C-alpha cells in the first residue's frame, strides 16, 4: 500500500498535488467521480454596470434581466422558461443553496431565482432553501448552488466547491489542511448528481481571505457567473479573485492557503475540469474590469 504523505507547499510548487492528495485519501469512502451535472464546461459571465448603485444596493430589475441572459446563454434556449426546463423538472423538489455567512449571497439573487423558477411553472412549495445540514439535500431532488464569490482564509477560495460544506455534518473537517477534500461532499449519496446549476453571485465579491469581511477587499464586479461544471466555475472564480489581488498589490498576491480544493475536485474527485484551456467562457455585458487575465 502506498505510504500516506502529508501535503506540503512543495507539492503545490511541483504540481504533484493530485497524486499526493490521491495517496492521502486512499480508503476514504466518497472518492469516486460522478457528481458532475453535465458534460459541459461552459461558463457564462453576465455583467451589468447598473446591477448595483453607488451604495451597493441591488437593482432587482437589472438582476432579473441578467439572470434571463445567463439561462438562455447557458442552455441555448430562447426563453427563460425553456431554459429552466432543461435544467429542472416541474416535479422536482428544488433546493436553493446560497452562501450563508461572511459575504453572503445577496437575498435579491435568491429571490430573483425563486421567482424565475415559479414563472417557469415550478410550484412555490417545491422550492426550498437547502443551505444547512445533511437533511436539506435529502429533501431535494435537484439543487441549485447560489454561492457568493469570495476568498476564504481556511480554504483559499470559498465559493463553489465550499457551498455544500454543511452537508457533511462536520464542516471543520474540511478546513485548512483538509480543504482539498471538499470535493468528496459532492459525491455523498444524497448530493451526487443533484446539482443542476451553479449560479455565482459575483455582484460584490471579496478578494481577501478575511476571515471576516473587510470592505477594503470588496469591489463592484456586478456579475453573475454560471455553469453546470462546478470545477470550471470555481476555476473562473479563482482567476477573477487572483487578478483582483494582483491589481490591488501591483504584483502577484497568491491566496494562502492555496485553493487546493479546486484542483483536487478535478484530479481526485472527477467533478469537472480545472484546466483553463478546456473551459469555454462566454461573456456578456459590461466588459471593464473583467479580470480574466
Amino acid at each position: 500500500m502506498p505510504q500516506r504523505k502529508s501535503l506540503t507547499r512543495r507539492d503545490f510548487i511541483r504540481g504533484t498535488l493530485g497524486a499526493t492528495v490521491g495517496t492521502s485519501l486512499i480508503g476514504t469512502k466518497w472518492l469516486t467521480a460522478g457528481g458532475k451535472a453535465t458534460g459541459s464546461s461552459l461558463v457564462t459571465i453576465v455583467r451589468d454596470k447598473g446591477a448595483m448603485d453607488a451604495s451597493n444596493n441591488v437593482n432587482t430589475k437589472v438582476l432579473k434581466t441578467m439572470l434571463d441572459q445567463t439561462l438562455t446563454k447557458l442552455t441555448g434556449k430562447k426563453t427563460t422558461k425553456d431554459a429552466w426546463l432543461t435544467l429542472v423538472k416541474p416535479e422536482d423538489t428544488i433546493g436553493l443553496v446560497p452562501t450563508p455567512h461572511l459575504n453572503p449571497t445577496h437575498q435579491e439573487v435568491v429571490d430573483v431565482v425563486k421567482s424565475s423558477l415559479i414563472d417557469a411553472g415550478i410550484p412555490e412549495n417545491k422550492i426550498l432553501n437547502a443551505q444547512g445540514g445533511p437533511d436539506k439535500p435529502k429533501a431535494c431532488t435537484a439543487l441549485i448552488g447560489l454561492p457568493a464569490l469570495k476568498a476564504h482564509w481556511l480554504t483559499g477560495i470559498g465559493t463553489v466547491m465550499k457551498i455544500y460544506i454543511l452537508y457533511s455534518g462536520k464542516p471543520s473537517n474540511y478546513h485548512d489542511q483538509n480543504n482539498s477534500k471538499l470535493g468528496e461532499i459532492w459525491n455523498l449519496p444524497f448530493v451526487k448528481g443533484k446539482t443542476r446549476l451553479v449560479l455565482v453571485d459575483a455582484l460584490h465579491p471579496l478578494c481577501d481571505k478575511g476571515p471576516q469581511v473587510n470592505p477594503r477587499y470588496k469591489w463592484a464586479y456586478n456579475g453573475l457567473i454560471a455553469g453546470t461544471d462546478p470545477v470550471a466555475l470555481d476555476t473562473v472564480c479563482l482567476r477573477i479573485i487572483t487578478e483582483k489581488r494582483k491589481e490591488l498589490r501591483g504584483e502577484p498576491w497568491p491566496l494562502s492557503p492555496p485553493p487546493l480544493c479546486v484542483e483536487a475536485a478535478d484530479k481526485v474527485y472527477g467533478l469537472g475540469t480545472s484546466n483553463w484551456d478546456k473551459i469555454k467562457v462566454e461573456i456578456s455585458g459590461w466588459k471593464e474590469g473583467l479580470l480574466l487575465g
Partner: protein
Amino acid sequence: MQESKPTLPKTIRAWTRPDSPQLVTAKSIFDYMDGAGELYIGYRFDHLESYEYKAKDLNNILVEVYFMKTSDDAFGLLSLDWEGEPLNLAGEPAQIAGKPVRSGKSPQSKAAPESSSWPRALYGEGLLRLWSDTVYARIMAHQETPESKEAVLALGRSIIKDRENPPPPKLLQKLPDTFPEDWVLGKERTSYFRSHLVLNSIYYLGQENMLNLDLSSEAIASPYEKKDSEGIKRIHFLLVKYSDHKRARQALGHFHNVYLPEHPIFLQSDSSGEISNMFLIEDGWLGYKIKDETIAFIFECPDQKTARTIINQI
C-alpha cells in the same frame, strides 16, 4: 472570563446600541461567525462582546470587542493586516515601516517608546480595527458616510479610553530591520500568531501542524525585500519561540521529517548550542537555525550565499 472593561456609549450621534452585548465565548464562537472562529481561538481568546448600533433610516454600525488573555494576542490579531490608514486615537505617534503617519490632536500618550513604531488603529472604507492592551476591536459601518466615520472613530476612542498601552510582543525585537546585502524587513507584512492555521493563511507550509504550534508558542512571519534591476525579490522569515528547548527540538524534528523527507536529519549542536542547516528545494534555499527555545527559518532564498549569510546573522 475577563472583566468587560470598555464601556461603550449607549448612543453615539444617531446610533443607539442595545442595553447588553451579544456575548460570545470560545464554545459559541462558531455559531456566531462560522469557520472564522478558528482565527480567534488560535490566539489566547477570552470572549467577544458584540453590539449592533442602529439608527432610523441609516445603516447599522457593528462593534465587536475581542477580549484576549494577553496584549500580545490582541496585537497579533491587528498584525494580520496592516492595510488601511493608521490612526492616532490616543495621541501617540503612529508609524509603520519607520515612517511617521498622521499625528493626532489628543494629549501625549503614555506608550512605551518602542510601541510607537506599530500602529494601534487602522481605518479604511468604514472599518476601524484597533489594538488596545488586551482588547482587539472591529468597528464597522455597513455604509461609510462622513457621519458614520465620525461615529466609528468616536466608538474606537471610547474603547481605548483609560486602558493601558503596553508595548508590542517582545519577540518582535528579535526581528532585524535589515539583513546583509540590502534585505529590508517588510514591516507592513509582519504578523504575530500562535496557530498553524494562521501561519498557513500568511505563508502556506503544508497540510499538517508540522511546527507543533499551539497556544504555548509564539511566532512571527515577515518578508524581507530587496530591490534590484530585476524588480523586488522577497525571502520569507519565520521565527518561532517555544516554551522550552525540548519542545523546540521536537518541533524542528517534526518539521524536517514532513517538509524535507529526502534529507537525513542531523540535530547535532555546535559548541554554541546552535544547530543550523540549509537545503535547496523547489522554491529556493531553505535554512533554519535552532538555539535554546527558538527556531528561525528562512524560505525562498535566491542562492546559497544569501541563505548562509542570513543564517549566520540570526
